[in-house]
Structure formats: structure tokens, C-alpha cells
């Protein structure tokens, strides 16, 4: 399979501040998701744990994005770096809801050889 057609997964794993889960989800869908899609990412999953909005505890949210290979990841990255509002989102508005977060890039183990063959 050509590397350009391999699906790459970009996963945001976010723990919200207590009571902020629903508000963050709403803000994210309104302020972040449309622009991320415009940068070429596809939102494959939105997951909430536990599946109840907690009023005085943290929720954990997973956003699973996909991109078509290295070129798709670079295209989204470079488009984001040209937009100063993106850094403002993560460091300002989003940060107000977030206790901790990680982002990581994943691929199917069966695709590692093809992705590394560059």
C-alpha cells in the first residue's frame, strides 16, 4: 500500500477540569472541530468517559482524528501553523477547561513498514 493512502490517527486525550466536560465538548465542536476539518483532518470518534457529564469531577475525552499518510499530517500541521488563532485556542479558551491533555500519532502496526519506507 502506498504510504500516501495509509490512515494515520491523531488522538487527543483530554482530562477536563471538574464539571467542565460538557462545556469543553460544546466549545470544541463550535470553535475547533470545523477548522480542523478544514485543515484536512477527519473526526473518526468522539468518546467520553465515563459516559455521563460529571458536575464535580473530571471527564476524560478522546478525539480520534485521521489523516491520509504523512502528507495529510503535514498539510494539517502547516495549515495550523499559519493560523495564530489555533495556538490561542489551545493556550487560552481550551486551557480554561482542561486539567491535562496529551496528543499522539498512531498507525496500525501492519502499516509501520510502509510508513518507514521513505
Amino acid at each position, binding site marked *: 500500500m502506498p504510504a500516501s493512502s495509509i490512515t494515520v490517527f491523531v488522538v487527543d486525550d483530554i482530562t477536563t477540569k471538574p464539571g467542565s466536560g460538557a462545556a469543553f465538548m460544546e466549545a470544541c465542536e463550535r470553535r475547533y472541530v470545523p477548522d480542523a476539518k478544514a485543515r484536512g483532518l477527519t473526526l473518526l470518534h468522539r468518546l467520553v468517559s465515563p459516559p455521563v457529564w460529571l458536575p464535580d469531577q473530571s471527564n476524560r475525552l478522546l478525539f480520534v482524528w485521521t489523516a491520509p499518510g504523512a502528507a495529510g499530517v*503535514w498539510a494539517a500541521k502547516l495549515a495550523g*501553523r499559519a493560523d495564530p488563532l489555533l495556538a490561542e485556542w489551545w493556550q487560552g479558551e481550551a486551557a480554561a477547561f482542561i486539567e491535562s491533555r496529551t496528543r499522539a*500519532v498512531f498507525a496500525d502496526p501492519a502499516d509501520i513498514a510502509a510508513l518507514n519506507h521513505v
Partner: protein
Amino acid sequence: MFEALKLITLAPQLGPAEREQFRLALQAATAALPSAPRALLEPVLPGSYNAGDFIWRVSFVDERAGRRALAGGSWRDAEAQLFADRSRVAQVEHVAWERAVGGGRSPGRGIHRVALFCANQSPSAERLAKFAAETVAMPQHIRSIRSWQLATTSDADGSRPWTHVWEQEYTDLEGLTGAYMMHPYHWAHVDRWFDPEWPEWLVDCMLCHAFCATSAPVIGSALSQACPPTA
């Protein structure tokens, strides 16, 4: 070893003859520098960005020799004449360094690439050390990198207060635009230090990426002997 590098952007209104005149004058001034065992002056190739028109680079045996040469009257006169006139030179990014880690073996001729970084997003000592360790591990994964060097600057001027100089040599352009850019160790791992979407974001989005053709080794041979080629 003490090294200095400039990315030089000429004024856009200069014609080809004036550009060549500038290049020849800088080449002559560089050749007249005392104690400069190695010098590079090459036009940047298309695909570079924030890179200007020329990469200028000189290497000295140590900081004392380098600073003495660059403080000498003949170089200072030439530098003032060449760079002070804003109708001729629009922008100069300047760095100099002595502290660097590197390895590999130059292909002798091919492509030299330099990136200037400004690590200005919460740059704690721990984060800087992790960034540097992951960056210098790139050649272990990306085999097209034939020689490399990561330096922390002692002098920096220009668009940003540059903190790091990341250089590589490749046999050909495909090694840079293909393997280096498209390897997952780069875009799925090290690049998180450069991406404002990641919590690890460290490096200002304004960076310089410049590359040129070479006909002789660029990155220091002394470092190549000190650090064996990567696996």
C-alpha cells in the same frame, strides 16, 4: 570549533548583476578572513523558506580564533559595507556557536540544510534537554542524513533570538525532501516540539529552513571523528 552562519536576503529590486556583485564581494571578504579553514557561500535552493538568497557559513578552529577574525578591521569594514545598506540587503539572520553535538560523515558534495530555531515556549532545562536528545536521534532513524550537527547559539540576531542551529548534509535533495520530511520519526514524533497544537510545543513557529548545493564537506570533520557514525 567556532562557527558562524548568516542567511542573507537581498533587496528584491536588485538585478542579477548586482546580486552577483554582492556575492563576489562577500566571497572575497570571506576569503580574506584570517584563520578560516572552511567557508560556504551558496545560493539557497527553491523550497527553502525564511531563508533569503544566500547561506554564508565559516568555521574556525576555536572561539578565540573566530572572534578575533570576525572582529578584525578588514572584516568589519567589509561587513559594514556589504550588510549595512538596506537598499541592498533586506534581512540577515545571524548565528554563531561553539557548543555543538554532531556525527556522521559528509558525503563531500550534495545538499547542506540548516534550520534556525527559537525555543521560546516554556523552555525549561528539562524540556530543552529532551528536545535536543530526540532531535539528535533523528539520524538513527532517517538514514538519508549523512552528517549532522545540533548547536546552541552563543550569538544570534535577526527575526528571532535564535537558540538552536540544526544542520544536516545529504547526498541529494531527495534525502531531505523525501526521507527526512516523510519519516514518521519526524512528523509523528519530533515535530510535536514545533506544533502549537501539542502540549509539548517549544519552538516558535517562525523558523528558517535553508538548503543549498555543496561541493565540499560543510559540517565539521573534527566532530565526525569525535562522534562515530550513527547506526
